[in-house]
């Protein structure tokens, strides 16, 4: 117990201190992309000119959004083609065949949108070529897209009386080359040193001590796992994701990978404080995120420690919920990962969320349902959070009867409407997609578990897709044409129905004049604002889904406490 709490505290300290430093570095690299920078400008200059781009030309929000969409479309098409034609490529020692069009569509959208939902198992489906040339590339560039859009949105808040919010291509190159790549090399090599494989060998055949044969999947894993965690991607190299002892061999690799999950999303808060030239604003948002994260961690940790009363009488000691958890992580490191990976829209798992206790899985689910803004995806979580900030200052304005202001700018009808538009992406995808999945016969067949848990499986699947998280209640059979298609559409909705309105808000705010704060200005850097922001997230984000949560995890918790089990009829 004391050791577990000390583990949580040390992890939080590690993330916070490194996030402050990374925020400073991102400010240098990204905030003001001076085209005459002696080092950075040389690299993006060469690349941009070869692509016919003028790195000095800034874009308005519409041009920026068009560039984002064009680049993501190109990326998805390339990945789709690679997956369909897998059998024709080198680096395929297991001779794995090409993917079906359904699965290739789902996987291409999934990795392009930084979701990394996986309707397949890596070691049984993908060649080393597809993992490297297909998935690893999107692991980098989907994360960089999030960083670029995040920085562009912040520019909109920070600038005044201008139409432009940066150049997408320059932001993209800077984010990949100067932020993601160096971190990935360091983390990747550290992981190899601690046991994560990085090779191109065929699968190894071992003669076991018991006289059997064990085929051990290999591959160029460490390089992909490093960027999978840093870029809040989360797609596992192997099926069991970060629970696989090759992906995550020890408590030490677990610490490194957990750090990588939250480091860059948390750094965005401090980057924001620097870019708007008021560090307190960034700290306030960081505090709101940290509060929700800590509460979720406490609840999940407690629920998993108490465990499953239905097996309490047959085991020695406490019935801690070890189903779907590996021994080296136990309860505390698994709960910490589950809450962090769903707070960030990472979605890698070191324990199987489907087997968590109902309340233990409720917190990860709530993290996703509130829109992935508790740190969230790299960049994506922060611009999502800014949509809640706009709504929070609007509500504060209603309460005091003044035109809402934020950072000296008037927040008007247009911005509030756009923020609400972004907000609706989650309910539409999750409740709409989930409701269809619950009534269409060929969709319902994907549900594995009977009783309320089955509803939670559906809810989690569509929340994870729309929220671009990618973790799963993995008993849910997501490989059918229905779900691969519906979830592909939900992933695009959750990604671009946020990006476009948020860029539009940035464009609108960039044009505004700023006013000096007056005595009546509501300060947005103090504890009252932090409390208001948390309340807005929980009321708007949480209550939207409360009826579904009541029928799923809450009903199951009561059933479990009453000693009820559910069987397939």
């Amino acid at each position: 117990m004391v050791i577990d709490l000390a583990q949580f505290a040390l992890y939080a300290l590690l993330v916070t201190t490194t996030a402050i430093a990374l925020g400073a570095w991102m400010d240098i690299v990204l905030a003001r992309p001076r085209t005459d920078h002696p080092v950075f400008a040389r690299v993006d200059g060469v690349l941009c000119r070869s692509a016919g781009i003028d790195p000095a030309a800034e874009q308005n929000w519409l041009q920026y959004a068009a560039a984002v969409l064009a680049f993501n479309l190109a990326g998805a098409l390339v990945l789709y083609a690679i997956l369909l034609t897998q059998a024709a490529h080198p680096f395929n020692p297991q001779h794995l065949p090409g993917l079906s069009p359904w699965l290739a569509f789902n996987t291409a959208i999934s990795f392009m949108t930084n979701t990394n939902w996986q309707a397949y198992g890596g070691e049984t489906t993908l060649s080393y070529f597809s993992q490297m040339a297909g998935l690893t590339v999107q692991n980098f560039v989907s994360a960089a897209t999030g960083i670029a859009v995040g920085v562009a949105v912040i520019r909109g808040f920070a600038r005044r009386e201008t139409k432009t919010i940066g150049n997408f291509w320059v932001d993209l190159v800077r984010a990949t080359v100067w932020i993601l790549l160096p971190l990935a090399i360091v983390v990747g090599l550290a992981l190899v040193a601690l046991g994560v494989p990085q090779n191109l060998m065929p699968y190894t055949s071992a003669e076991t001590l018991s006289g059997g044969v064990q085929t051990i999947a290999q591959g160029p894993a460490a390089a992909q796992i490093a960027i999978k965690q840093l870029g809040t991607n989360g797609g596992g190299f192997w099926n069991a994701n970060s629970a696989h002892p090759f992906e995550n061999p020890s408590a030490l690799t677990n610490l490194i990978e957990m750090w990588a999950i939250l480091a860059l999303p948390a750094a965005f808060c401090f980057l924001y404080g620097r870019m708007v030239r008021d560090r307190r604003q960034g700290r306030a948002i960081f505090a709101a995120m940290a509060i929700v994260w800590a509460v979720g961690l406490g609840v999940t940790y407690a629920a998993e420690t108490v465990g499953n009363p239905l097996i309490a009488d047959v085991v020695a000691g406490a019935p801690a919920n070890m189903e779907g958890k590996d021994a080296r992580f136990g309860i505390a490191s698994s709960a910490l990962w589950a809450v962090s990976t769903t707070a960030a829209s990472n979605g890698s798992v070191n324990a199987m969320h489907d087997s968590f206790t109902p309340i233990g899985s409720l917190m990860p689910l709530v993290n996703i349902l509130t829109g992935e803004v508790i740190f969230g995806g790299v960049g994506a979580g922060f611009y999502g959070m800014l949509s809640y900030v706009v709504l929070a200052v609007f509500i504060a304005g209603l309460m005091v009867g003044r035109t809402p202001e934020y950072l000296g700018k008037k927040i008007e009808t247009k911005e509030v409407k756009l923020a609400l538009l972004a907000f609706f992406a989650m309910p539409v995808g999750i409740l709409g997609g989930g409701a269809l999945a619950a009534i269409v016969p060929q969709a319902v067949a994907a549900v594995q578990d009977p009783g309320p848990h089955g509803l939670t499986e559906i809810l989690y699947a569509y929340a994870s897709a729309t929220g671009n998280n990618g973790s799963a209640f993995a008993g849910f059979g997501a490989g059918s044409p229905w779900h691969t298609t519906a979830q592909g559409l939900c992933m695009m909705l959750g990604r671009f129905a946020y990006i476009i309105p948020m860029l539009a808000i940035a464009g609108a705010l960039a044009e505004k004049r700023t006013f000096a704060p007056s005595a009546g200005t509501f300060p947005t850097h103090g504890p009252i604002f932090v409390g208001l922001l948390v309340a807005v997230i929980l009321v708007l984000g949480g209550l939207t889904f409360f009826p579904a949560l009541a029928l799923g995890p809450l009903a199951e918790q009561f059933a479990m406490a009453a000693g009820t089990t559910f069987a397939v009829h």
Partner: protein
Amino acid sequence: MTLFRPAATVIVVMTVLFGFAYPLGMTALSGALFPREAKGSLIVRDGRIVGSALIGQMFEAPHYLMGRPSAVAYDAANSSGSNLGPTNARLIGAVRDRASAFVAAHGVKPPVDLVTASASGLDPHISPDAAFAQAARIAEARGVSPAQIRAFLRERVEGRALGLFGEPVVNVLLANLALDAAFPLPDEPAIGAQASDG
């Protein structure tokens, strides 16, 4: 279309950089710096690969330490947990069956990790309690005293990382290799080679 050339060029450059240069460079660097780890920490005994130090194996014989239940029977080319929900009658039934079998063989109730399936299906570890609970059975099968086995297992407990992270565990495959070396079965000659687990 003014966006076609930038989008197409940048995705091609990114694919060359991050799809080939980065992973192949990392492969070369890893192989040079950490050759054993990069290849999957394989264990060779008497010239044959017997497994990976990081991947669990199925053990059912009474003279071996048994690992966690696995949803995929330790198939290291198809990792997975059971993904059964906490109120699923199949899960509760499976746990109760495993617990009854353990009580029948050992006379005591099992620690929870010995009757619940791991997340990966390849869990190489068990908790120290789960190891100690099997000491008497292993001692009987190998014809030595339970105290000897218990002391041997205590030596093989790996502590938490930095004293804080993760849980104390025993690596089942490495412990069994060492058991074979230290306490050969009564009717078999000692196995010559020392298990290499470094």
